[in-house]
Protein backbone atom coordinates (compact mmCIF):
# COMPACT_ATOMS: atom_id res chain seq x y z
CA UNK A 1 0.00 0.00 0.00
CA UNK A 2 2.75 2.40 0.99
CA UNK A 3 4.65 1.65 -2.16
CA UNK A 4 1.58 2.42 -4.25
CA UNK A 5 1.07 5.71 -2.44
CA UNK A 6 4.72 6.56 -2.86
CA UNK A 7 4.69 5.64 -6.50
CA UNK A 8 1.63 7.69 -7.34
CA UNK A 9 2.23 10.41 -4.79
CA UNK A 10 2.43 13.17 -7.42
CA UNK A 11 -0.73 12.12 -9.16
CA UNK A 12 -2.61 11.75 -5.87
CA UNK A 13 -1.62 15.25 -4.79
CA UNK A 14 -2.57 16.58 -8.21
CA UNK A 15 -5.96 14.90 -8.02
CA UNK A 16 -6.59 16.24 -4.51
CA UNK A 17 -5.70 19.80 -5.47
CA UNK A 18 -7.84 19.63 -8.59
CA UNK A 19 -10.81 18.13 -6.78
CA UNK A 20 -10.60 20.81 -4.12
CA UNK A 21 -10.61 23.55 -6.72
CA UNK A 22 -13.42 21.98 -8.71
CA UNK A 23 -15.52 21.74 -5.55
CA UNK A 24 -14.75 25.35 -4.77
CA UNK A 25 -15.83 26.35 -8.26
CA UNK A 26 -19.03 24.38 -7.96
CA UNK A 27 -19.90 26.12 -4.70
CA UNK A 28 -19.26 29.53 -6.24
CA UNK A 29 -21.37 28.77 -9.30
CA UNK A 30 -24.25 27.64 -7.13
CA UNK A 31 -24.15 30.68 -4.89
CA UNK A 32 -24.53 34.05 -6.47
CA UNK A 33 -22.71 35.89 -3.70
CA UNK A 34 -19.18 35.32 -2.51
CA UNK A 35 -18.77 32.84 0.30
CA UNK A 36 -16.70 33.83 3.29
CA UNK A 37 -13.69 31.82 2.14
CA UNK A 38 -13.61 33.18 -1.40
CA UNK A 39 -14.20 36.70 -0.16
CA UNK A 40 -11.25 36.32 2.19
CA UNK A 41 -9.01 35.24 -0.68
CA UNK A 42 -10.14 38.22 -2.70
CA UNK A 43 -9.51 40.56 0.21
CA UNK A 44 -6.02 39.15 0.71
CA UNK A 45 -5.18 39.42 -2.96
CA UNK A 46 -6.59 42.92 -3.36
CA UNK A 47 -5.08 44.16 -0.10
CA UNK A 48 -1.64 42.93 -1.07
CA UNK A 49 -1.71 44.38 -4.58
CA UNK A 50 -3.60 47.66 -4.44
CA UNK A 51 -1.30 49.57 -2.02
CA UNK A 52 1.55 49.17 -4.50
CA UNK A 53 -0.72 50.17 -7.34
CA UNK A 54 -1.72 53.31 -5.47
CA UNK A 55 1.90 54.26 -4.86
CA UNK A 56 2.91 53.56 -8.44
CA UNK A 57 -0.04 55.51 -9.79
CA UNK A 58 0.82 58.41 -7.53
CA UNK A 59 4.41 58.46 -8.75
CA UNK A 60 3.36 57.97 -12.36
CA UNK A 61 0.69 60.64 -12.17
CA UNK A 62 2.99 63.07 -10.40
CA UNK A 63 5.76 62.79 -12.95
CA UNK A 64 3.27 62.95 -15.81
CA UNK A 65 1.66 66.08 -14.37
CA UNK A 66 5.02 67.69 -13.75
CA UNK A 67 6.02 67.16 -17.35
CA UNK A 68 2.74 68.18 -18.92
CA UNK A 69 1.82 71.05 -16.61
CA UNK A 70 5.20 72.70 -16.23
CA UNK A 71 7.46 71.71 -19.09
CA UNK A 72 5.57 70.42 -22.08
CA UNK A 73 3.18 73.29 -22.82
CA UNK A 74 3.43 73.19 -26.59
CA UNK A 75 0.16 73.98 -28.32
CA UNK A 76 -1.52 75.24 -25.18
CA UNK A 77 -2.35 78.64 -26.67
CA UNK A 78 -3.96 77.09 -29.73
CA UNK A 79 -5.86 74.67 -27.56
CA UNK A 80 -7.00 77.54 -25.38
CA UNK A 81 -8.33 79.38 -28.40
CA UNK A 82 -10.17 76.30 -29.57
CA UNK A 83 -11.65 75.73 -26.14
CA UNK A 84 -12.83 79.31 -25.92
CA UNK A 85 -14.50 78.98 -29.29
CA UNK A 86 -16.14 75.80 -28.13
CA UNK A 87 -17.38 77.48 -24.96
CA UNK A 88 -18.99 80.19 -27.07
CA UNK A 89 -20.65 77.60 -29.25
CA UNK A 90 -21.83 75.58 -26.28
CA UNK A 91 -23.28 78.62 -24.58
CA UNK A 92 -25.33 79.37 -27.65
CA UNK A 93 -26.50 75.79 -27.73
CA UNK A 94 -27.29 75.90 -24.06
CA UNK A 95 -29.71 78.76 -24.50
CA UNK A 96 -31.69 76.63 -26.91
CA UNK A 97 -31.47 73.54 -24.72
CA UNK A 98 -32.65 75.45 -21.69
CA UNK A 99 -35.87 76.21 -23.43
CA UNK A 100 -36.34 72.57 -24.41
CA UNK A 101 -35.56 71.46 -20.88
CA UNK A 102 -38.00 73.94 -19.41
CA UNK A 103 -40.70 72.67 -21.71
CA UNK A 104 -39.91 69.07 -20.78
CA UNK A 105 -40.08 69.92 -17.09
CA UNK A 106 -43.46 71.55 -17.50
CA UNK A 107 -44.75 68.45 -19.22
CA UNK A 108 -43.24 66.23 -16.54
CA UNK A 109 -44.90 68.33 -13.89
CA UNK A 110 -48.22 67.96 -15.64
CA UNK A 111 -47.77 64.19 -15.72
CA UNK A 112 -46.54 64.04 -12.10
CA UNK A 113 -43.24 62.53 -13.15
CA UNK A 114 -40.62 61.78 -10.59
CA UNK A 115 -37.28 63.11 -11.67
CA UNK A 116 -34.05 61.50 -10.64
CA UNK A 117 -31.12 63.70 -9.83
CA UNK A 118 -27.53 62.86 -9.07
CA UNK A 119 -27.18 64.57 -5.76
CA UNK A 120 -23.76 63.36 -4.67
CA UNK A 121 -20.72 61.97 -6.43
CA UNK A 122 -17.35 60.88 -5.21
CA UNK A 123 -14.26 61.32 -7.39
CA UNK A 124 -12.02 58.27 -7.52
CA UNK A 125 -8.87 57.28 -9.33
CA UNK A 126 -8.50 54.09 -11.30
CA UNK A 127 -5.46 52.31 -9.92
CA UNK A 128 -5.45 48.96 -11.67
CA UNK A 129 -7.24 46.33 -13.66
CA UNK A 130 -8.24 42.73 -13.19
CA UNK A 131 -5.40 41.71 -15.46
CA UNK A 132 -7.51 39.33 -17.49
CA UNK A 133 -8.92 39.56 -20.99
CA UNK A 134 -11.97 37.61 -19.88
CA UNK A 135 -12.89 39.86 -16.98
CA UNK A 136 -13.10 43.56 -17.70
CA UNK A 137 -12.89 45.18 -14.34
CA UNK A 138 -10.88 48.00 -12.82
CA UNK A 139 -9.98 48.95 -9.29
CA UNK A 140 -10.58 52.41 -7.86
CA UNK A 141 -8.94 53.94 -4.82
CA UNK A 142 -12.15 54.43 -2.84
CA UNK A 143 -13.92 51.78 -0.82
CA UNK A 144 -16.06 51.02 2.18
CA UNK A 145 -14.33 53.67 4.26
CA UNK A 146 -15.45 56.29 1.77
CA UNK A 147 -19.05 55.16 1.86
CA UNK A 148 -19.10 53.15 -1.33
CA UNK A 149 -21.53 50.28 -1.73
CA UNK A 150 -22.09 47.64 -4.35
CA UNK A 151 -24.18 48.57 -7.42
CA UNK A 152 -23.31 52.25 -7.34
CA UNK A 153 -22.99 53.81 -10.78
CA UNK A 154 -19.56 54.86 -12.00
CA UNK A 155 -19.38 57.56 -14.63
CA UNK A 156 -17.04 60.05 -16.28
CA UNK A 157 -17.83 63.36 -17.87
CA UNK A 158 -18.00 61.57 -21.21
CA UNK A 159 -20.41 58.83 -20.24
CA UNK A 160 -21.07 55.82 -18.07
CA UNK A 161 -18.24 53.49 -17.12
CA UNK A 162 -19.74 50.68 -15.08
CA UNK A 163 -20.93 49.86 -11.62
CA UNK A 164 -19.30 49.00 -8.33
CA UNK A 165 -19.13 45.23 -8.12
CA UNK A 166 -17.27 44.51 -4.89
CA UNK A 167 -16.28 46.88 -2.14
CA UNK A 168 -13.21 46.41 0.00
CA UNK A 169 -11.78 48.57 2.76
CA UNK A 170 -10.11 51.29 0.75
CA UNK A 171 -10.61 50.01 -2.77
CA UNK A 172 -13.48 48.84 -4.92
CA UNK A 173 -13.88 46.64 -7.93
CA UNK A 174 -15.76 48.24 -10.83
CA UNK A 175 -17.38 46.10 -13.50
CA UNK A 176 -17.03 47.88 -16.83
CA UNK A 177 -19.92 48.06 -19.27
CA UNK A 178 -17.92 46.08 -21.85
CA UNK A 179 -17.71 43.04 -19.57
CA UNK A 180 -19.86 40.17 -20.74
CA UNK A 181 -21.63 39.90 -17.40
CA UNK A 182 -22.69 43.54 -17.31
CA UNK A 183 -26.11 44.81 -18.35
CA UNK A 184 -27.29 48.39 -18.66
CA UNK A 185 -30.75 49.63 -19.52
CA UNK A 186 -30.29 51.85 -22.56
CA UNK A 187 -32.41 53.89 -24.91
CA UNK A 188 -31.70 55.21 -28.38
CA UNK A 189 -31.87 58.97 -28.30
CA UNK A 190 -33.81 59.62 -31.51
CA UNK A 191 -35.93 56.55 -32.03
CA UNK A 192 -36.59 56.10 -28.27
CA UNK A 193 -36.16 52.33 -28.60
CA UNK A 194 -35.12 50.62 -25.40
CA UNK A 195 -32.71 47.74 -25.12
CA UNK A 196 -30.08 46.17 -22.93
CA UNK A 197 -26.45 47.11 -23.30
CA UNK A 198 -24.06 44.21 -22.85
CA UNK A 199 -20.40 43.47 -23.28
CA UNK A 200 -19.16 40.66 -25.49
CA UNK A 201 -16.37 38.18 -24.83
CA UNK A 202 -14.21 40.16 -27.26
CA UNK A 203 -14.74 43.39 -25.32
CA UNK A 204 -17.22 45.05 -27.66
CA UNK A 205 -20.43 46.65 -26.48
CA UNK A 206 -23.72 45.67 -28.08
CA UNK A 207 -27.30 46.82 -27.65
CA UNK A 208 -29.64 43.86 -27.44
CA UNK A 209 -33.38 43.24 -27.46
CA UNK A 210 -34.34 45.61 -30.25
CA UNK A 211 -36.51 44.00 -32.91
CA UNK A 212 -35.42 43.87 -36.52
CA UNK A 213 -38.50 45.76 -37.70
CA UNK A 214 -37.15 48.92 -36.07
CA UNK A 215 -34.94 51.29 -37.99
CA UNK A 216 -31.70 52.14 -36.23
CA UNK A 217 -29.05 54.19 -37.95
CA UNK A 218 -25.32 54.22 -37.20
CA UNK A 219 -24.34 57.42 -35.48
CA UNK A 220 -27.36 57.52 -33.23
CA UNK A 221 -26.64 58.36 -29.64
CA UNK A 222 -27.40 55.87 -26.87
CA UNK A 223 -28.34 56.97 -23.36
CA UNK A 224 -29.26 55.25 -20.14
CA UNK A 225 -32.92 54.46 -19.74
CA UNK A 226 -32.90 54.25 -15.97
CA UNK A 227 -34.57 50.86 -16.09
CA UNK A 228 -31.68 49.05 -14.42
CA UNK A 229 -32.05 51.10 -11.23
CA UNK A 230 -28.30 51.67 -11.22
CA UNK A 231 -27.78 54.48 -13.69
CA UNK A 232 -30.10 57.48 -13.68
CA UNK A 233 -31.89 58.18 -16.90
CA UNK A 234 -30.29 60.22 -19.64
CA UNK A 235 -26.59 59.66 -19.11
CA UNK A 236 -24.57 59.30 -22.30
CA UNK A 237 -23.64 55.71 -23.08
CA UNK A 238 -22.17 55.79 -26.55
CA UNK A 239 -22.82 55.92 -30.26
CA UNK A 240 -24.19 53.26 -32.58
CA UNK A 241 -21.42 52.18 -34.94
CA UNK A 242 -22.86 49.16 -36.73
CA UNK A 243 -26.31 47.70 -37.17
CA UNK A 244 -26.94 44.20 -38.41
CA UNK A 245 -29.35 41.35 -38.08
CA UNK A 246 -28.79 39.26 -35.01
CA UNK A 247 -30.41 36.12 -33.71
CA UNK A 248 -34.09 35.58 -32.94
CA UNK A 249 -35.50 38.57 -34.80
CA UNK A 250 -33.36 40.99 -32.83
CA UNK A 251 -30.95 43.53 -34.24
CA UNK A 252 -27.27 43.30 -33.55
CA UNK A 253 -26.27 46.85 -32.67
CA UNK A 254 -22.68 47.65 -31.87
CA UNK A 255 -22.06 50.66 -29.70
CA UNK A 256 -18.87 52.62 -29.21
CA UNK A 257 -18.80 53.65 -25.55
CA UNK A 258 -18.71 57.38 -24.92
CA UNK A 259 -16.14 56.94 -22.17
CA UNK A 260 -12.74 55.61 -23.15
CA UNK A 261 -12.82 52.41 -21.13
CA UNK A 262 -9.27 51.39 -21.97
CA UNK A 263 -7.74 54.61 -20.66
CA UNK A 264 -9.68 55.40 -17.54
CA UNK A 265 -7.96 57.60 -15.01
CA UNK A 266 -10.47 59.52 -12.92
CA UNK A 267 -14.08 58.50 -12.48
CA UNK A 268 -17.06 59.66 -10.46
CA UNK A 269 -18.99 57.27 -8.28
CA UNK A 270 -22.63 58.26 -7.93
CA UNK A 271 -23.11 57.82 -4.21
CA UNK A 272 -26.55 59.32 -3.87
CA UNK A 273 -29.56 59.71 -6.11
CA UNK A 274 -32.61 61.74 -5.29
CA UNK A 275 -36.06 61.25 -6.66
CA UNK A 276 -38.07 64.42 -6.58
CA UNK A 277 -41.69 64.97 -7.36
CA UNK A 278 -42.73 68.27 -8.89
CA UNK A 279 -43.93 70.74 -6.30
CA UNK A 280 -47.43 72.16 -6.28
CA UNK A 281 -46.12 75.33 -7.84
CA UNK A 282 -44.51 73.42 -10.67
CA UNK A 283 -47.46 71.22 -11.34
CA UNK A 284 -49.95 74.02 -11.21
CA UNK A 285 -51.93 75.02 -14.23
CA UNK A 286 -49.99 76.66 -17.00
CA UNK A 287 -51.74 79.59 -18.53
CA UNK A 288 -51.79 80.02 -22.26
CA UNK A 289 -50.59 83.56 -21.75
CA UNK A 290 -47.52 82.25 -20.01
CA UNK A 291 -46.67 79.95 -22.85
CA UNK A 292 -47.28 82.76 -25.30
CA UNK A 293 -45.14 85.10 -23.26
CA UNK A 294 -42.33 82.62 -23.37
CA UNK A 295 -42.45 82.33 -27.12
CA UNK A 296 -42.62 86.04 -27.75
CA UNK A 297 -39.77 88.44 -27.17
CA UNK A 298 -40.28 90.11 -23.84
CA UNK A 299 -39.75 93.72 -23.04
CA UNK A 300 -36.26 94.39 -21.76
CA UNK A 301 -36.10 95.29 -18.12
CA UNK A 302 -36.11 98.89 -17.25
CA UNK A 303 -32.55 99.95 -16.53
CA UNK A 304 -31.77 101.63 -13.23
CA UNK A 305 -32.09 105.38 -13.04
CA UNK A 306 -28.38 106.12 -13.03
CA UNK A 307 -27.79 104.03 -16.09
CA UNK A 308 -30.92 105.15 -17.90
CA UNK A 309 -28.83 106.86 -20.49
CA UNK A 310 -26.25 104.40 -21.65
CA UNK A 311 -23.03 105.59 -23.05
CA UNK A 312 -23.00 105.74 -26.81
CA UNK A 313 -20.05 103.38 -27.03
CA UNK A 314 -21.50 100.92 -24.58
CA UNK A 315 -22.20 97.51 -26.08
CA UNK A 316 -25.77 96.51 -26.69
CA UNK A 317 -25.56 93.61 -24.30
CA UNK A 318 -24.93 95.93 -21.38
CA UNK A 319 -28.14 97.77 -22.12
CA UNK A 320 -30.19 94.63 -22.16
CA UNK A 321 -28.63 93.24 -18.99
CA UNK A 322 -28.42 95.93 -16.40
CA UNK A 323 -28.55 93.51 -13.56
CA UNK A 324 -25.56 91.80 -12.08
CA UNK A 325 -24.61 88.57 -13.79
CA UNK A 326 -25.59 85.29 -12.33
CA UNK A 327 -23.18 83.74 -9.87
CA UNK A 328 -20.39 81.81 -11.49
CA UNK A 329 -20.72 83.61 -14.74
CA UNK A 330 -18.34 86.20 -16.07
CA UNK A 331 -19.74 89.68 -16.17
CA UNK A 332 -18.06 90.51 -19.43
CA UNK A 333 -19.10 89.70 -22.94
CA UNK A 334 -20.62 86.29 -23.07
CA UNK A 335 -21.99 84.56 -26.05
CA UNK A 336 -25.19 84.03 -24.22
CA UNK A 337 -25.62 87.73 -23.70
CA UNK A 338 -25.09 88.30 -27.34
CA UNK A 339 -27.54 85.59 -28.17
CA UNK A 340 -30.14 87.12 -25.93
CA UNK A 341 -29.60 90.55 -27.29
CA UNK A 342 -29.77 89.48 -30.88
CA UNK A 343 -32.96 88.09 -32.31
CA UNK A 344 -32.59 84.73 -33.89
CA UNK A 345 -32.52 85.09 -37.66
CA UNK A 346 -34.86 82.13 -37.97
CA UNK A 347 -38.35 83.39 -38.53
CA UNK A 348 -40.09 80.75 -36.42
CA UNK A 349 -38.08 81.24 -33.27
CA UNK A 350 -36.94 84.29 -31.52
CA UNK A 351 -34.36 83.93 -28.79
CA UNK A 352 -36.17 85.18 -25.73
CA UNK A 353 -34.80 87.82 -23.45
CA UNK A 354 -36.62 86.55 -20.46
CA UNK A 355 -36.32 87.70 -16.89
CA UNK A 356 -35.38 84.11 -16.08
CA UNK A 357 -32.15 84.37 -17.96
CA UNK A 358 -31.56 87.99 -17.15
CA UNK A 359 -31.70 87.34 -13.46
CA UNK A 360 -33.65 90.50 -12.68
CA UNK A 361 -37.03 91.22 -11.24
CA UNK A 362 -39.82 89.65 -13.23
CA UNK A 363 -41.29 91.76 -15.92
CA UNK A 364 -44.97 92.26 -16.45
CA UNK A 365 -45.49 88.85 -17.98
CA UNK A 366 -43.99 86.05 -15.94
CA UNK A 367 -43.13 83.19 -18.26
CA UNK A 368 -44.01 79.69 -17.25
CA UNK A 369 -40.38 78.70 -17.31
CA UNK A 370 -39.83 80.77 -14.24
CA UNK A 371 -41.57 78.01 -12.33
CA UNK A 372 -39.22 75.30 -13.45
CA UNK A 373 -38.32 72.89 -10.69
CA UNK A 374 -35.19 73.60 -8.80
CA UNK A 375 -33.00 70.53 -8.65
CA UNK A 376 -31.70 69.49 -5.26
CA UNK A 377 -28.30 70.75 -4.19
CA UNK A 378 -25.45 68.82 -5.73
CA UNK A 379 -22.84 67.65 -3.33
CA UNK A 380 -19.38 66.87 -4.49
CA UNK A 381 -17.66 64.81 -1.90
CA UNK A 382 -14.26 66.06 -1.00
CA UNK A 383 -11.79 63.63 -2.51
CA UNK A 384 -9.49 64.15 0.45
CA UNK A 385 -12.07 63.94 3.19
CA UNK A 386 -15.12 62.30 1.82
CA UNK A 387 -16.91 62.30 5.13
CA UNK A 388 -17.50 66.01 4.89
CA UNK A 389 -18.82 66.65 1.43
CA UNK A 390 -18.96 70.17 0.19
CA UNK A 391 -22.34 71.43 -0.85
CA UNK A 392 -22.53 73.10 -4.14
CA UNK A 393 -25.62 75.27 -4.51
CA UNK A 394 -28.06 73.91 -6.98
CA UNK A 395 -28.10 75.67 -10.29
CA UNK A 396 -30.63 78.39 -9.77
CA UNK A 397 -33.18 78.92 -12.49
CA UNK A 398 -31.58 82.24 -13.30
CA UNK A 399 -28.20 80.64 -13.91
CA UNK A 400 -29.32 77.63 -15.80
CA UNK A 401 -26.55 78.13 -18.27
CA UNK A 402 -23.95 77.09 -15.77
CA UNK A 403 -22.30 73.92 -17.06
CA UNK A 404 -23.21 70.94 -14.97
CA UNK A 405 -21.90 68.05 -16.94
CA UNK A 406 -20.64 66.17 -13.95
CA UNK A 407 -23.11 66.68 -11.24
CA UNK A 408 -26.09 68.30 -12.73
CA UNK A 409 -29.54 66.84 -12.84
CA UNK A 410 -29.86 64.03 -15.31
Amino acid at each position, binding site marked *: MESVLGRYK*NLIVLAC*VLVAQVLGLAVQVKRTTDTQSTRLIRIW*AVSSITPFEKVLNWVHGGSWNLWHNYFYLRGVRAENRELKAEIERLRLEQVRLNEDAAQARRLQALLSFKEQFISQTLPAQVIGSG*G*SEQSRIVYIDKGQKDGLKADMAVITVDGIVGKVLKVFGSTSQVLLIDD*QSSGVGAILEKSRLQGILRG*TPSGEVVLERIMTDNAVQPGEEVRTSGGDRVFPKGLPVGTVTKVGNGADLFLSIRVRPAANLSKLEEVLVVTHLVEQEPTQLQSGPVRAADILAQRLPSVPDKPPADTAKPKPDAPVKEATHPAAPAPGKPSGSTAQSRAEATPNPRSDSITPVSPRTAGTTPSAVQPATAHRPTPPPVQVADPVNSTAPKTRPAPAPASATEPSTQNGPQ
Partner: protein
Amino acid sequence: MPITYTSGEQVEVYRFNWLITLGVPATALFLQAWLPHQFPVFAMLDLPLLVTIFFAISRRNPISGLLTGGVIGIFQDALTGLPIGLNGIAKTLVGYAASSLGVKIDVENAGARLLVTLVFCVAHKVIYFTVARGMVSLSVQWSWPHELWSALVNAIVGVFLFYALDRFKLRT
Protein backbone atom coordinates in the same frame (compact mmCIF):
# COMPACT_ATOMS: atom_id res chain seq x y z
CA MET B 1 16.05 30.18 4.94
CA PRO B 2 16.39 28.60 1.50
CA ILE B 3 13.69 26.20 0.41
CA THR B 4 15.08 22.97 -0.98
CA TYR B 5 13.41 20.45 -3.21
CA THR B 6 14.08 16.90 -4.34
CA SER B 7 16.71 16.52 -7.00
CA GLY B 8 16.84 14.26 -10.04
CA GLU B 9 19.73 12.07 -11.08
CA GLN B 10 20.37 13.34 -14.58
CA VAL B 11 19.27 16.95 -14.60
CA GLU B 12 20.22 19.73 -12.31
CA VAL B 13 17.67 20.79 -9.73
CA TYR B 14 17.51 24.34 -8.41
CA ARG B 15 16.10 25.94 -5.35
CA PHE B 16 15.24 29.53 -4.60
CA ASN B 17 15.55 31.89 -1.73
CA TRP B 18 12.23 32.33 0.09
CA LEU B 19 12.24 36.01 -0.84
CA ILE B 20 12.34 35.07 -4.51
CA THR B 21 9.81 32.30 -3.99
CA LEU B 22 7.28 34.79 -2.67
CA GLY B 23 8.43 38.01 -4.28
CA VAL B 24 8.55 36.98 -7.92
CA PRO B 25 4.98 35.59 -8.09
CA ALA B 26 3.71 38.59 -6.13
CA THR B 27 5.47 40.97 -8.50
CA ALA B 28 4.08 39.08 -11.49
CA LEU B 29 0.57 39.35 -10.08
CA PHE B 30 1.03 43.03 -9.37
CA LEU B 31 2.35 43.77 -12.86
CA GLN B 32 -0.44 41.71 -14.39
CA ALA B 33 -2.98 43.93 -12.65
CA TRP B 34 -1.17 47.23 -13.14
CA LEU B 35 0.35 47.08 -16.62
CA PRO B 36 -2.85 46.51 -18.64
CA HIS B 37 -4.38 49.55 -16.99
CA GLN B 38 -1.49 51.74 -18.09
CA PHE B 39 -0.78 49.97 -21.38
CA PRO B 40 -3.76 47.93 -22.62
CA VAL B 41 -1.58 45.90 -25.00
CA PHE B 42 -0.06 44.12 -21.99
CA ALA B 43 -3.39 42.41 -21.33
CA MET B 44 -2.13 39.83 -23.81
CA LEU B 45 0.65 38.79 -21.44
CA ASP B 46 0.18 36.25 -18.67
CA LEU B 47 3.11 36.91 -16.37
CA PRO B 48 1.84 34.63 -13.56
CA LEU B 49 1.77 31.76 -16.05
CA LEU B 50 5.35 32.46 -17.13
CA VAL B 51 6.47 32.51 -13.51
CA THR B 52 4.64 29.24 -12.88
CA ILE B 53 6.38 27.58 -15.81
CA PHE B 54 9.77 28.94 -14.76
CA PHE B 55 9.55 27.67 -11.19
CA ALA B 56 8.15 24.36 -12.35
CA ILE B 57 10.87 23.58 -14.86
CA SER B 58 13.60 24.82 -12.55
CA ARG B 59 12.57 22.87 -9.47
CA ARG B 60 11.61 19.78 -11.43
CA ASN B 61 9.32 18.66 -8.66
CA PRO B 62 5.72 17.93 -9.74
CA ILE B 63 4.19 18.55 -6.33
CA SER B 64 6.02 21.82 -5.93
CA GLY B 65 5.08 22.79 -9.49
CA LEU B 66 1.38 22.08 -9.12
CA LEU B 67 1.18 23.82 -5.74
CA THR B 68 2.98 26.88 -7.05
CA GLY B 69 0.70 27.01 -10.07
CA GLY B 70 -2.40 26.48 -7.96
CA VAL B 71 -1.61 29.25 -5.49
CA ILE B 72 -0.58 31.73 -8.19
CA GLY B 73 -3.70 30.90 -10.20
CA ILE B 74 -6.04 31.30 -7.22
CA PHE B 75 -4.58 34.70 -6.37
CA GLN B 76 -4.83 35.73 -10.01
CA ASP B 77 -8.50 34.70 -10.00
CA ALA B 78 -9.07 36.68 -6.83
CA LEU B 79 -8.13 39.86 -8.68
CA THR B 80 -10.66 39.27 -11.44
CA GLY B 81 -14.39 39.37 -11.11
CA LEU B 82 -14.67 35.73 -12.16
CA PRO B 83 -15.06 32.67 -9.90
CA ILE B 84 -11.92 31.61 -8.07
CA GLY B 85 -10.43 28.45 -9.51
CA LEU B 86 -10.42 29.02 -13.26
CA ASN B 87 -6.80 30.06 -13.42
CA GLY B 88 -6.13 27.90 -10.38
CA ILE B 89 -7.03 24.66 -12.13
CA ALA B 90 -5.33 25.64 -15.37
CA LYS B 91 -2.09 26.68 -13.70
CA THR B 92 -2.10 23.65 -11.40
CA LEU B 93 -2.13 21.37 -14.42
CA VAL B 94 0.46 23.45 -16.27
CA GLY B 95 2.71 23.51 -13.20
CA TYR B 96 2.46 19.77 -12.84
CA ALA B 97 3.09 19.15 -16.54
CA ALA B 98 5.98 21.61 -16.75
CA SER B 99 7.78 20.15 -13.74
CA SER B 100 7.19 16.60 -15.00
CA LEU B 101 8.64 17.61 -18.34
CA GLY B 102 11.53 19.33 -16.62
CA VAL B 103 12.43 16.06 -14.92
CA LYS B 104 12.73 14.28 -18.25
CA ILE B 105 14.34 16.81 -20.57
CA ASP B 106 16.73 19.68 -20.28
CA VAL B 107 15.05 23.00 -20.87
CA GLU B 108 17.94 25.33 -20.26
CA ASN B 109 18.50 26.66 -23.77
CA ALA B 110 16.51 29.40 -25.40
CA GLY B 111 15.00 27.29 -28.18
CA ALA B 112 13.68 24.64 -25.83
CA ARG B 113 12.32 27.27 -23.50
CA LEU B 114 10.55 29.07 -26.33
CA LEU B 115 8.94 25.86 -27.52
CA VAL B 116 7.99 24.64 -24.05
CA THR B 117 6.50 28.00 -23.08
CA LEU B 118 4.59 28.22 -26.34
CA VAL B 119 3.08 24.77 -25.86
CA PHE B 120 2.19 25.40 -22.22
CA CYS B 121 0.62 28.77 -23.01
CA VAL B 122 -1.68 27.14 -25.54
CA ALA B 123 -2.37 24.28 -23.14
CA HIS B 124 -3.21 26.77 -20.40
CA LYS B 125 -5.68 28.55 -22.66
CA VAL B 126 -7.32 25.30 -23.68
CA ILE B 127 -7.72 24.18 -20.06
CA TYR B 128 -8.96 27.59 -18.99
CA PHE B 129 -11.58 27.77 -21.71
CA THR B 130 -12.68 24.19 -21.12
CA VAL B 131 -13.23 24.83 -17.42
CA ALA B 132 -14.82 28.24 -18.04
CA ARG B 133 -17.26 26.87 -20.56
CA GLY B 134 -17.82 23.43 -19.13
CA MET B 135 -18.06 24.19 -15.45
CA VAL B 136 -18.91 27.86 -15.04
CA SER B 137 -20.84 28.31 -18.32
CA LEU B 138 -18.96 31.47 -19.16
CA SER B 139 -19.40 32.60 -22.74
CA VAL B 140 -15.71 33.04 -23.42
CA GLN B 141 -14.63 33.47 -26.99
CA TRP B 142 -12.01 31.29 -28.61
CA SER B 143 -10.02 32.56 -31.54
CA TRP B 144 -7.12 30.46 -32.75
CA PRO B 145 -5.18 33.35 -34.35
CA HIS B 146 -5.49 35.43 -31.21
CA GLU B 147 -4.57 32.59 -28.89
CA LEU B 148 -1.59 31.51 -30.97
CA TRP B 149 -0.34 35.06 -31.32
CA SER B 150 -0.77 35.59 -27.60
CA ALA B 151 1.07 32.35 -26.84
CA LEU B 152 3.94 33.35 -29.14
CA VAL B 153 4.28 36.77 -27.51
CA ASN B 154 4.23 35.15 -24.08
CA ALA B 155 6.84 32.62 -25.16
CA ILE B 156 9.18 35.32 -26.45
CA VAL B 157 8.76 37.39 -23.30
CA GLY B 158 9.21 34.20 -21.31
CA VAL B 159 12.62 33.50 -22.81
CA PHE B 160 13.92 36.88 -21.65
CA LEU B 161 12.17 36.61 -18.32
CA PHE B 162 13.63 33.16 -17.67
CA TYR B 163 17.12 34.46 -18.34
CA ALA B 164 16.54 37.28 -15.91
CA LEU B 165 15.22 34.90 -13.26
CA ASP B 166 18.08 32.43 -13.82
CA ARG B 167 20.24 34.72 -11.70
CA PHE B 168 18.22 33.84 -8.64
CA LYS B 169 18.71 30.10 -9.01
CA LEU B 170 20.61 28.31 -6.28
CA ARG B 171 22.15 24.91 -6.86
CA THR B 172 20.98 22.16 -4.55
